C-alpha cells in the first residue's frame, strides 16, 4: 500500500506542481467559476467526453482483474487434478468449471494407486454427465463436499444413494425430489434414469464458482444409475465414499487430489504424469490462460490510454476554441492590469476543472459500469466476478490527469498570446 501510494503521489505530482506554480499568489477561482457557469452546457459536453473515455479505461482494467480473480477463486479448492492424458485445459473446464466433455476414464487400479499414496489427504472421483433442469449432477464423495464447502449451510451430508447436496444457488429446497436426466441441455434424456429418485438433504455454502449451481450425489449413485458396479465389493455395497474396491471401480474422468503438504502436491504431480495419467495444477493452467489474456489486456489498456489521450487532445483543441468565447473578458483582464500569469492561471484552471471533473465522474461511471457488468458475467458464467476499483485504476487516472493538465498549458499559452485590442473591441 505504501508503494502504491507513493506511485500515486508521484503520478499526481507534476499536475499539483504545475497548479501550484500557475496559481500561486492569485485568487482566480471565483472568476473561473463564473466562466464555467456561463458556458455550462458546452462544459458539460467536454466533461462527458472525458468521463466516457476515463470510464472505459477504468472499466476495462477493473473488469479484467475481476474476471481473472473470479476464475482463480473458483479454482482455489482444486489443488491437483489427475485424469487420463489429454488436454489440461479441457479437463480444467470439465472438472473445475463444470463444462463437461467426453474423456477417457481412470480405472480402479489407478485410483487405488492415487488414494493409497501416503501423502494424499483427499482423492475424490469427480463423475459428471447427468443433469436436472439446468443444474449439472456430479458424483463425488462426502469428503470432497466438505473440502469444497466446509460446513453445510443447511441440512446434512448425503449418506446413501438417493440423497443429494445442492450448491448454494440451486433453486430447489431441502426435501425436494428429482430424477436426474442423462446428459445435459437440449440433448438430455429425461427418462433414461427413471426410478433414480433423489432427495435433497443439504445445501453447500457459496463457493463463487459454477459448483454453486451443481447437484452433488454420491459417486456410487452415478455408477449405479448407469448400470455399473458402485465402487464397493458386495459386502460393502451400502458404503458411501472411500475406500473403494479397485475391482468394482467402474472408472472416473478425473480425481481431485489434495495433499496436506505443498511439496507433496508437486511430488504427486510428478508421480502421476505418465503415459497413462495426466496430473496438473488447475492454478498453473489458469495462470497460463491469464497470461494470454494479460497480453491482450496490455494491448487493450494501451488502446484505452491512447483513446483517452486522443479524446483529451480533442477536448483541449475544443478548449482553445472555447477560450475564444471568453477572449473578450480575458482581454478586459489584461486591459485593467491583470498580470499575464493571472490570465494564464484563469485559462489553465478552467481547463483543469473540466479535466479533473471529467476524470472523477469517469472514475465513478467506471465503477458503476464494472459492477453492472460483473453481475451480468456472474449470472451467465456462475463464476463470482467481483470487480472493484483498485490501485491500477487510480494510477491510470492519476497519470491521465497529470498528462492532460500539462497539456492544458497549451490553450493557456495560446490565450495569453491573443491580441488585446481586437478582442476588447470584438
Amino acid at each position, binding site marked *: 500500500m505504501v508503494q502504491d501510494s507513493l506511485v500515486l503521489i508521484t503520478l499526481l505530482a507534476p499536475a499539483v506542481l504545475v497548479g501550484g506554480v500557475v496559481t500561486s499568489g492569485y*485568487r482566480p477561482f471565483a472568476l473561473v467559476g463564473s466562466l464555467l457557469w*456561463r458556458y455550462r452546457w458546452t462544459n458539460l459536453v467536454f466533461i462527458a467526453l472525458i468521463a466516457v473515455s476515463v470510464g472505459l479505461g477504468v472499466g476495462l482494467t477493473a473488469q479484467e482483474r475481476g474476471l481473472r480473480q473470479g476464475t482463480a477463486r473458483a479454482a482455489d479448492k482444486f489443488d491437483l487434478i489427475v485424469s487420463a492424458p489429454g488436454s489440461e485445459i479441457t479437463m480444467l473446464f470439465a472438472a473445475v468449471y463444470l463444462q463437461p466433455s467426453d474423456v477417457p476414464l481412470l480405472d480402479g487400479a489407478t485410483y487405488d494407486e492415487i488414494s493409497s499414496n501416503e501423502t494424499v489427504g483427499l482423492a475424490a472421483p469427480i463423475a459428471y454427465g447427468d443433469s436436472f433442469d439446468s443444474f449439472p449432477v456430479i458424483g463425488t464423495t462426502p469428503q470432497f463436499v466438505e473440502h469444497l464447502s466446509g460446513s453445510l449451510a443447511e441440512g446434512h451430508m448425503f449418506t446413501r444413494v438417493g440423497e443429494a447436496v445442492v450448491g448454494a444457488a440451486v433453486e430447489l429446497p431441502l426435501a425436494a425430489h428429482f430424477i436426474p436426466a442423462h446428459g445435459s441441455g437440449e440433448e438430455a434424456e429425461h427418462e433414461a434414469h427413471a426410478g433414480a429418485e433423489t432427495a435433497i438433504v443439504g445445501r453447500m455454502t457459496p463457493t463463487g464458482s459454477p459448483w454453486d449451481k451443481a447437484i452433488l450425489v454420491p459417486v456410487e449413485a452415478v455408477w449405479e444409475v448407469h448400470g455399473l458396479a458402485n465402487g464397493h465389493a458386495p459386502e460393502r455395497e451400502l458404503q458411501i465414499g472411500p475406500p473403494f474396491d479397485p475391482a468394482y471401480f467402474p472408472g472416473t474422468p478425473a480425481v481431485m487430489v489434495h495433499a496436506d503438504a505443498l511439496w507433496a502436491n508437486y511430488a504427486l504431480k510428478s508421480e502421476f504424469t505418465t503415459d497413462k495419467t495426466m496430473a496438473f495444477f488447475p492454478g498453473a493452467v489458469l495462470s497460463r490462460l491469464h497470461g494470454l489474456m494479460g497480453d491482450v489486456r496490455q494491448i487493450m489498456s494501451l488502446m484505452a490510454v491512447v483513446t483517452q489521450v486522443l479524446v483529451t487532445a480533442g477536448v483541449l483543441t475544443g478548449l482553445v476554441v472555447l477560450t475564444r468565447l471568453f477572449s473578450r473578458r480575458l482581454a478586459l483582464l489584461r*486591459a*485593467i*492590469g491583470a498580470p499575464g500569469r493571472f490570465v494564464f492561471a484563469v485559462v489553465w484552471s478552467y481547463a483543469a476543472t473540466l479535466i479533473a471533473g471529467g476524470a472523477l465522474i469517469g472514475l465513478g461511471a467506471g465503477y458503476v459500469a464494472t459492477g453492472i457488468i460483473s453481475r451480468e458475467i456472474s449470472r451467465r458464467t456462475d463464476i463470482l466476478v467481483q470487480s472493484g476499483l483498485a490501485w491500477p485504476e487510480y494510477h491510470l487516472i492519476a497519470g491521465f490527469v497529470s498528462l492532460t493538465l500539462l497539456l492544458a498549458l497549451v490553450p493557456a499559452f495560446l490565450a495569453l498570446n491573443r491580441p488585446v485590442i481586437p478582442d*476588447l473591441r470584438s
Partner: protein
Amino acid sequence: MAGLPLEVRNLTVTGSQARILVRADVLSIAPGEAIGIRGPSGAGKSTLLYALAGLHPTACGGIRWGGADLVALGEGERTRFRREHVGMVFQDFLLFEELTAAGNAGLAAAFGSKREVASIRDRAGAVLERLGIREARRNVDSFSGGERQRVAIARALANDPSIILADEPTASLDRETADRMISDLLDLARSGGKTLIAVSHDRALLDRMDRCIDVIDGCLREGAGIA
C-alpha cells in the same frame, strides 16, 4: 491617488501593413484635467485611448505619464502601470455576468498582492455605495444598463487610479441614465483629482469636460475648443 500629467510627443500608432492609425505630434494634459476626445467614427479615437493606456504594441514615440514613458516600458511593466495607475470604463461595461456587483467591482483583488486585497474590496464597496448600488451581493446579470455601468465605474476606481480612461461610457445608456452616469463619473474623478480622458460622441458628456481634442483621419488637433 492624485492625477498624473500626460505628455505625448511624436506618437504614431500603426496597424496591419504599417498603416498609420493615429498620429499625435504634441499632446499635453495637466494632472486632474478632464479631457474629451471626439471625432467621426473610425477616426482613431479609441486607438488613441488604448495607446495612452499602453495597450497598443505598435505605438512608438513618447507617451509619458508623470515619469513613466509607456512606449519605453516592456509589456509586463505597462501591465503593472495600468494595474497601479489606470482605471478603464468601456462602452458595454464588460462585466462578468455570473459575479456579483462586489465581485466585479473588486475584480483587481483576484490578482492584487495580499496586502492590497482588503483595501481594493473596501474601496470597491465604498464606490458602489456612493453610486447607489445597494445590492452589492447580487449577480450583475439582473442589473439594468445604468447599474452595470456604475459597477464598471466602481471597478475602474477600486485600485484608486490616478488616471481614468473611458471609451464611449454613455453609448449603451438612455439619456437620463447617461446624464446621471456623467455626473457620477465627473464627481468621482474631480473629487479625487484624477486625470480623466473620455472618448465620446455624447455632446452632454463633452460639454462638461474641461476641453476637447479632435481626432480626424487619425490626426490630433490639440487644444481645439469645444464646438
